[in-house]
């Protein structure tokens, strides 16, 4: 019999329903793989006992012919989601020992539907980073390596634990969050499918906030079908999140395989950066051809505001973060400095010890752009440009149904390669931040390998709440690309 971990989520779901294997077997198979994959550092916390207990309960339900759409499916959760009674760190020292007495809405939706939690996944600290190197728990290592090279590569970030664990088949699928590309870029760098739904699709309640107007939860999975199954469970209106949208959640899986004939695919000429490898350019052209071959109409479009997206993002996101992270003050939970003289030095020492460099950098940037005398020049102007980006997309979507771009400007890079220059690191998000600023649904689909054998992804963006069309397009791209490559299991 094949290893349950080799089944896609959809296959595993069906096999469990058909009682071809038990939830406990599936869970054990994944736990065994997790145990051997310590070198990847994908997990911060493994909840093996809890997972086995949950799996047994799933088997009892499955035996009675009951169970939800994800009954018995073992999943991993980015450590940004609060999980009841389970250490939740945001990969930060400042949340030391924090065990929330509540469950995030999105993870709770998964458990409601029968999924089993394997553990909490590593990430960039407070989701701030594009390489997973800002984690207090150390970087995650990409399961993929360059051909003939043992150098440790990044799995992308900030959902690097989620992407690595999915690529290494340590979970049937994982959930992550995407504030500027934190699902799509790691998915692109690990040969996995990552979906950032429309802002408001998934509740943010119980997700440690980074930038409230941009944060959105989504799945990282092996196939677009797996991602569709995941998103249907994750999504839904939540009255506890004022920005969550009250709309029915469609059956995304049912959208897969519907004809894309006649879909208008926009190709924006601005999605290029200096030094972008020719292979990415070629792959993009391949993607355009694939969609054309599938019967789509290709429309050249221009999104001239694109070049302002990254600067706008690096004003808006830090501004919100500087305020969102004010609550980590050592008073209520998490880390508190041992040495201090008064309330001010308690704050200063706690936050100096508790936050890493990148988080501090963004708090400083955010505090600066909101300060009296700078607010108008930075924050207010950034908001105005953000509106223009939104309007520009709205205009483009009058002419097209989907927009096709590369997911990231490079394949996975080596650890330490970009840590010296934050701006180089920030450029990783250049193709993805636009979707967050405009609140659009977007996805990265693995589309090929570069000359060094590393996966590359293509991104699709859709109109707000057009996830069904997005999944249709993803599936078409997936079928055409026929991406089946897997990393060698060098880690054990």
């Amino acid at each position: 019999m094949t290893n349950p971990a080799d089944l896609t989520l959809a296959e595993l779901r069906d096999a469990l329903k058909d009682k071809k294997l038990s939830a406990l077997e599936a869970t054990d198979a994944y736990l065994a793989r997790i145990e051997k994959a310590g070198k990847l550092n994908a997990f911060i916390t493994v909840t093996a006992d809890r997972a086995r207990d949950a799996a047994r309960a799933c088997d009892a339900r499955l035996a009675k012919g009951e169970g939800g759409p994800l009954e018995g499916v073992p999943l991993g959760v980015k450590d940004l989601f609060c999980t009841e009674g389970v250490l939740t760190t945001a990969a930060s020292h400042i949340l030391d020992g924090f065990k929330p007495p509540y469950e995030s809405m999105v993870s709770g939706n998964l458990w409601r539907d029968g999924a089993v939690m394997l553990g909490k996944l590593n990430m960039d600290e407070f989701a701030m980073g594009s390489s997973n190197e800002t984690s207090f728990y150390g970087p995650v290592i990409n399961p993929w390596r360059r051909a003939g090279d043992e150098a440790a590569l990044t799995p992308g970030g900030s959902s690097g634990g989620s992407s690595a664990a999915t690529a290494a088949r340590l979970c049937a699928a994982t959930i992550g969050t995407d504030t500027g590309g934190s699902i799509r870029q790691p998915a692109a760098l690990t040969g996995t499918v990552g979906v950032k739904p429309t802002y408001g699709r998934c509740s943010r309640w119980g997700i440690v906030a980074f930038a409230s107007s941009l944060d959105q939860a989504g799945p990282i999975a092996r196939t677009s079908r797996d991602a569709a199954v995941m998103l249907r469970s994750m999504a839904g209106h939540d009255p506890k999140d004022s920005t969550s949208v009250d709309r029915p959640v469609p059956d995304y899986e049912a959208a897969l395989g519907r004809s894309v004939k006649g879909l208008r695919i926009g190709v924006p000429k601005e999605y290029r950066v200096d030094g972008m490898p020719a292979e990415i350019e070629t792959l993009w052209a391949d993607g355009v051809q694939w969609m054309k071959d599938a019967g789509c109409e290709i429309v050249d479009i221009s999104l001239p505001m694109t070049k302002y997206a990254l600067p706008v993002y690096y004003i808006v996101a830090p501004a919100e973060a500087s305020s969102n992270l004010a609550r980590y003050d050592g008073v209520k939970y998490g880390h508190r400095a041992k040495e201090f003289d008064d309330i001010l030095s308690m704050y200063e020492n706690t936050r100096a010890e508790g936050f890493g460099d990148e988080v501090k950098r963004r708090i400083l940037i955010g505090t600066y752009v909101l300060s009296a005398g700078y607010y108008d020049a930075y924050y207010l102007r950034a908001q105005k440009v953000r509106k223009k980006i939104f309007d520009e997309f709205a205009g483009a979507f009058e002419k097209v149904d989907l927009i096709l771009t590369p997911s990231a400007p490079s394949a996975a890079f080596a650890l330490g390669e970009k840590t010296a220059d934050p701006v180089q690191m920030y450029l990783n998000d250049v193709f993805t931040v636009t979707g967050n600023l405009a609140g659009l649904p977007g996805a990265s689909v693995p589309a090929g390998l570069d000359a060094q054998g590393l996966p590359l992804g293509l991104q699709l963006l859709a109109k707000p709440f057009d996830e069904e069309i997005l999944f249709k397009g993803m599936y078409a791209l997936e079928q055409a690309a026929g991406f089946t490559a897997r990393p060698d299991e060098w880690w054990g």
Partner: protein
Amino acid sequence: MNEPRKLLKGETGDWEVVVGLEVHAQVTSVAKLFSGAGATYGAGPNENVSLVDAAMPGMLPVINKYCVEQAIRTGLGLNARINLWSRFDRKNYFYPDLPQGYQISQYKDPIVGEGSIEVETEDGETITVGVERLHLEQDAGKSIHDLAPRESYVDLNRSGVALMEIVSKPDMRSADEGAAYFSKLRTIVRYLGTCDGNMEEGSMRADVNVSVRRPGEELGTRTETKNVNSIRALRQVIDYEARRQIEVIESGGTIDQETRLFDVKTGETRTMRSKEDAHDYRYFPDPDLLPLEIDPAWVEEIRASLPELPDAKKHRFMKDYGLSAYDAAVLAADKEKAAFFEAVAKGRDGKLASNWVTTELFGALNKAEKDIADSPVSAKQLGELIDLIADQTISGRIAKDVFAIMFDTGEDPGKIVEEKGLKQVTDAGAIEKVVDDIIAANPKQVEQVKEKPKTMGWFVGQVMKATGGKANPQAVNEILKKKLGV
């Protein structure tokens, strides 16, 4: 510019005091502004705290619609513009009783815009005070520093409770006017049921802005004295600041724009922080909340449900019951008292009812330190007492005695009059007999009264004494006049 109303004399000439108030009024509601936790006063430490109030990671605020309704209701009561589009902002600063590290408030786009109210001062003047704006915001928790020498404690019960900040225009010119405005505001919110106005429990407090200027000149630099929580203190702050500022300027100094604190013990204000040390609150729109868009139909629904407000009531009392402006204002100032008065006055002589309610009843309640709600005499009973006077069953003098018994025992006036035999004697025969006896027994006085008719009062007194006060005074007078021939 208006003519100066009130002037203060300084060493070097006249000064005008300019006062503006920022009043924080706690919204009357079951739950907090952005969480479902209880907002009621008096719970044990940290009992009314939700995950949102404690700023646990990932928690999000959700607006309490009832608090919005209360703010709209208050805005309407202040004759103010309701902004159909408003927004919440974050005011960022660190303090242990502010768990989020920011207060959710409304900075640029408040829910209520400009309005104005009529204010009656103690010397009988009526002034108009402009309202600049009203906005909703969260209260902070409470830090307690005196429970242990090396520790501070935090109680988050108040954290997240809804406050309305009502900002006046700088339209007041004296401590009297400031106090009168604050009282009027209190009356209005209590009428509306949007704030209980309980200052001891901190439900209403004011930041007091004071500046001085030469009559006719531009506004001077103002100081802001924080958290003034009684009307007495409010007066003291305005008087103290006005005099201090005049002294500073007259001795060649300048006023610093600063935040000050009031010391209840000394009655003085002192510097809390200067402009240079002012916080940079880094206000920005709260991305966790959508802008507040209000349906105009809802505003009209709320408007239609408003109770009669104090000013309208005052004017109606003057018109319907013939009361003086002063009496009408006193009665209208308190919703319960006004309702009591109306219950007494309905179908009776309004002035008589007003006298009995304001003088006798309020006097007795004050003496007994009781609220109108705890009055031992009900409106129905007081009305019955007035009826007994009107139909001449008892005299006004006896009525006062009956009232005293009612106040002590809570019994009905009719019963008291019956049991104590206090019915007025109107039987002319019976009175005549008493008069005849007195005339017969006092020949000297009879001689005297013929020369000095004013001394007839002595006979009236004797008759009343002999009848235990029950004789109808009018009848006594008539019979005496007839018999004595005066």
